[in-house]
């Protein structure tokens, strides 16, 4: 078994309004950066897991993201997986 560290990025679909993003954009404009044209806010979920190999880890993470971390009706997700160095034995 190998150790993996994963990050799941969850973002609203482009068709869904992000009022919080719009509010933050207004704040950025008040800060003076009027060149910022859009802001969308999402979530990052960090997970540590044990799996046989990278493909298994990715398959499990995709299921977790699809069933719980993201709601496919309003959100999309992207997964990054990194294998951690095996613990010294």
């Amino acid at each position, binding site marked *: 078994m190998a150790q993996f560290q994963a990050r799941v990025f969850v973002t*609203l679909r482009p*068709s*869904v*309004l*992000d*009022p*919080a993003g719009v*509010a933050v954009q207004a704040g950025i404009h008040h800060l003076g950066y009027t060149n910022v044209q859009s802001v969308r806010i999402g979530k990052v979920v960090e997970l540590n897991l044990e799996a046989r190999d990278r493909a298994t880890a990715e398959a499990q993470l995709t299921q977790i993201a699809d069933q*719980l*971390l993201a*709601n496919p*009706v*309003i959100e999309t997700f992207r997964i990054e997986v990194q294998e951690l160095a095996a613990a010294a034995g």
Partner: protein
Amino acid sequence: MSRTLNVGIVVFPGSNCDRDVAYVTSEILRWPTQLLWHEETNLSDYDLIVLPGGFSFGDYLRCGAIARFSPIMAAVKDHAAAGKWVLGICNGFQILTEAKLLPGALVRNQHLHFICDRVYLRLEAKERPWLQAYGDKTVIRLPIAHGEGCYYADVATLAELEANRQILFRYADAQGNVTPDSNPNGSLNNIAGICNPAGNVLGMMPHPERAADPALSHSPSDHTLDGLQLFKSLLNAAVG
């Protein structure tokens, strides 16, 4: 013939309108009522299952996202599949969409405010059982209290909801006009409540249980009992 319905009200960690619903069904309507911890798995005794308002599991991740995995939810799905009544109010509506018992999703209110108010609703699809006790009424007023009540669904789903007459309540003005100004949260098509195609599962953001106590009512015309009619409608539908 029985003149009552057996009501089960699901209590998730973080539910906070469970007792309000129980007060209405038990104390006002005198229906047998049971509060059901979310780990219960046998719902065979109940005609109506209510998923109440509140903040189940702290609304962490998304409203209703974690409650969907509570042990009781498999039984709620079976209950719904058997054609029995399921009513999701506010957080309960959010849970029903997360559980895919109703289409679409509820997202952050368009103007970001948590809204606590009373709003006018136009009754749609009045042939549906849930609206049978409203008689000639076409506009009612119910309390709302939510931060994530903006109904969203893709274009195809919205068209399906309209075509199947699954929209039961739309935010409107006092005359029943459905306008952008009467939409408190940015819900698409001013949607405040929808049912499944069969009509036995209803989700709604307004709180019928908060407009149901005759002790708080001055006259039938003041809308203070507009929520009670929803529950009474089911009795009409169930026992004829």
